[in-house]
């Protein structure tokens, strides 16, 4: 018997004035709606940052191209990176966490619904501030536009002397504001997970998605805040005459680097952990087996959380640290690959002996597994500091991290979309369009990012608006651009699938995938209150227990 779905159902049955619906959405404190707001926000910026990427790729198609000026190009790569990390990846992952965590732990909402809304709107404001720079970046001195200092804003490039006007301030303040939003959401997730689980759900019975988001949130607390601190220091330098990063006054440019990367490296683990979460929920369901080695997966996650805080200076291997420092960061960076590798093996172990169903969500997970494996291995190459002395700051690194972020995180996100869209909307996404999206995007991804490693090996640095026609550079850059075009087409197909399935997709029902976690026990979409009665659980897969009362998990855990 279906409990009544409220929110989205009403959107479909017209008759209410749109202003009322808009007001509901703007003032909502419901974690499910906020989740969708985060996701929609992120999708919009995905397209914007994608356009910025296309501008970069078109400019780099030929040597000495003049599609855009160097000033515009430098703004493009700065905005592309900043937008993708802070206004696409973080919001979309927080969006999914927001929607799913309370449902998966049998709670009715997050611990602090109003803080939840506040955090979302702070993040949204951050994005608006960043993009307002295109219009308002011209300060009193007429200098400045969108920020063009790279998404790391290395000192002293970000100082007033080298970055007059207000473009860098928009970067700083936008991220400061959205950083508070991120910390707010992290606090909320932690409080929810620790304080709102349904009876019987010990920490050892939580779905891995919940574990991974808990560790991710803990990381956010101590990882985003160093960036906040560094940005406050930058503002002191820029506006109060401070000297934190003023090399003329004895300040240190490398101090900014340390502070930034103490944020920047764990940040990418903040982004990958929720992606692991998606894969850890989806692969078992489509292999028809429980996750292999649940306790090890939890332990590996926590271990990654800690070790990832000790590797940051592998982004700084070229700054002239002594051999002991370089060796230290080499070994920690290689060590963090161990628990990550263990996770890949556990996913493999989950599929092993299963009955794999190749639904679109699973296809994206499989792509994730291969691609994340490769990305991890190029990461090991970069961790070897002398090898990094050649590879660093080149297109090899750009290829590596896009392999992780696009080939890993984005693929996992696509899987999450195909898997949970039915739950969010009550409709199935088209499998036909989904498979087209998958194959087209995979081909485009590999054409771009496999090839992109090679210019790096051939000596092409990053962040250059044009290049000399060195042997191989032009043809390789052209191929990379071609792959980007293919990916853009695939994304358009995906967006079309999202929109058209909302109205024309097959009705999903509660549990289209025959899955085992609590969100599949309620209607699609869930009612505003999630659960009519708070569930009581006795194992990690409460719905398996229900569907297989003769052989419940509780007997084996």
């Amino acid at each position, binding site marked *: 018997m279906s409990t009544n779905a409220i929110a989205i159902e009403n959107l479909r049955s017209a008759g209410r004035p749109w202003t009322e619906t808009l007001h509901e959405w703007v003032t909502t404190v419901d974690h499910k709606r906020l989740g969708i707001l985060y996701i929609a926000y992120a999708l919009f910026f995905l397209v914007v940052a994608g356009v910025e990427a296309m501008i970069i790729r078109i400019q780099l198609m030929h040597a000495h191209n003049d599609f855009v000026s160097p000033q515009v190009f430098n703004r493009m790569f700065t905005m592309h990176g900043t937008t993708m990390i802070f206004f696409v990846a973080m919001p979309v992952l927080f969006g999914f966490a927001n929607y799913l965590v309370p449902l998966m732990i049998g709670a009715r909402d997050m611990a602090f619904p109003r803080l939840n809304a506040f955090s979302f709107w702070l993040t949204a404001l951050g994005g608006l501030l960043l993009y307002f720079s295109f219009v308002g970046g011209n300060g009193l001195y007429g200098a400045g536009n969108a920020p063009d200092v790279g998404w790391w804003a290395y000192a002293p490039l970000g100082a007033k002397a080298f970055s007059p006007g207000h473009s860098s301030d928009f970067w700083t303040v936008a991220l400061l504001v959205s950083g508070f939003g991120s910390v707010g959401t992290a606090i909320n997730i932690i409080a929810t997970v620790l*304080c709102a689980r349904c009876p019987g759900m010990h920490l050892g019975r939580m779905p891995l998605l919940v574990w991974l988001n808990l560790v991710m949130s803990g990381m956010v*607390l101590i990882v985003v*805040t*160093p960036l906040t601190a560094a940005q406050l220091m930058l503002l002191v330098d820029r506006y109060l*005459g401070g000297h934190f990063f003023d090399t003329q006054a004895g300040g240190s440019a490398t101090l900014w680097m340390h502070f930034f990367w103490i944020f920047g490296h764990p940040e990418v683990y903040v982004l990958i952990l929720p992606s692991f979460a998606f894969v850890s929920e989806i692969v078992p369901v489509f292999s028809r087996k429980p996750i292999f080695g649940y306790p090890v997966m939890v332990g590996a996650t926590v271990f990654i959380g800690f070790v990832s805080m000790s590797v940051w200076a592998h982004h700084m291997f070229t700054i002239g640290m002594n051999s002991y420092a370089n060796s230290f960061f080499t070994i920690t960076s290689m060590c963090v690959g161990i628990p990550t590798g263990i996770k890949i093996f556990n996913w493999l172990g989950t599929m092993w002996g299963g009955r794999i169903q190749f639904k679109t969500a699973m296809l994206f997970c499989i792509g994730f597994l291969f691609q994340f494996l490769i990305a991890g291995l190029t990461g090991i190459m970069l961790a070897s500091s002398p090898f990094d002395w050649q590879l660093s700051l080149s297109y090899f690194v750009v290829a590596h991290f896009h392999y992780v972020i696009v080939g890993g995180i984005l693929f996992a996100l696509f899987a999450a979309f195909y898997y949970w869209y039915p739950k969010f909307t009550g409709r199935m996404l088209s499998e036909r369009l989904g498979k087209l999206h998958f194959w087209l995007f995979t081909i485009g991804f590999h054409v771009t990012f496999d090839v992109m490693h090679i210019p790096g090996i051939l000596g092409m640095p990053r962040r250059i608006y044009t290049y000399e026609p060195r042997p191989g550079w032009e043809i390789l850059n052209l191929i990379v651009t071609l792959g980007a075009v293919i990916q853009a087409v695939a994304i358009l197909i995906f967006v079309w699938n999202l929109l058209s399935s909302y109205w024309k997709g097959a009705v999903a029902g509660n549990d289209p995938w025959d899955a085992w976690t609590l969100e599949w*026990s309620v209607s699609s979409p869930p009612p505003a209150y999630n659960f009519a009665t708070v569930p009581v659980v*006795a194992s990690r897969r409460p*719905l398996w227990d229900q569907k297989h009362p003769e052989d419940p998990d509780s007997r084996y855990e």
Partner: protein
Amino acid sequence: MSALTIPITQPPRPWVLPDRGKVAMASLIIAESAIFTIFVVAYLFYVGKSLAGPTPSQVLETPVFYTICLLSSSLTVHLAGTFLKRGRQGAFLSLWLLTFVLGSLFLFGTAQEWHRLIYEKGLTISTNLFGTTYYSLVGLHAFHVTAGLVMLLVVLVFGLAGRVQRDQSGRVEVLSMYWHFVDAVWVVVFTVVYVLGR
């Protein structure tokens, strides 16, 4: 599908989870500690590296009295919370007010010290590395004290209006966690600036 229940053969143990306010405040404290840590690291990194201008040993005077004020306010706020839990409104309010006064005294002391440093010793945030790191670190702490005082005042006003009872002792405790944090940070800042850094 109706709500999920699984037949249980024995009555479930009482299901008690931590208080969300305390968990949230603890998380906030962890996040804030990270911010302070970065400012402390910058301070320590730049000790002795100023190219010119006044040095710590030349201009700093250890603020013993104001430190005692701030640290005792931790004691008073703790006692206030205990009294509230026992329902002793009067004691709670007096100690809460005393906490507010002690905290304000500390802020006044900081202001006084800054006035002396700026106008008598010529040390500003832009003078040199010491000036930048000193005012930033102590200023960040003072900002957190101010925020704490505002919250203390809000509770004080509600308390004087009779609206803070035993039922609210959990929330009061969460706020006093924050206040203890502010004091703990001062212990660190004091050690770094007035002991190690000189």
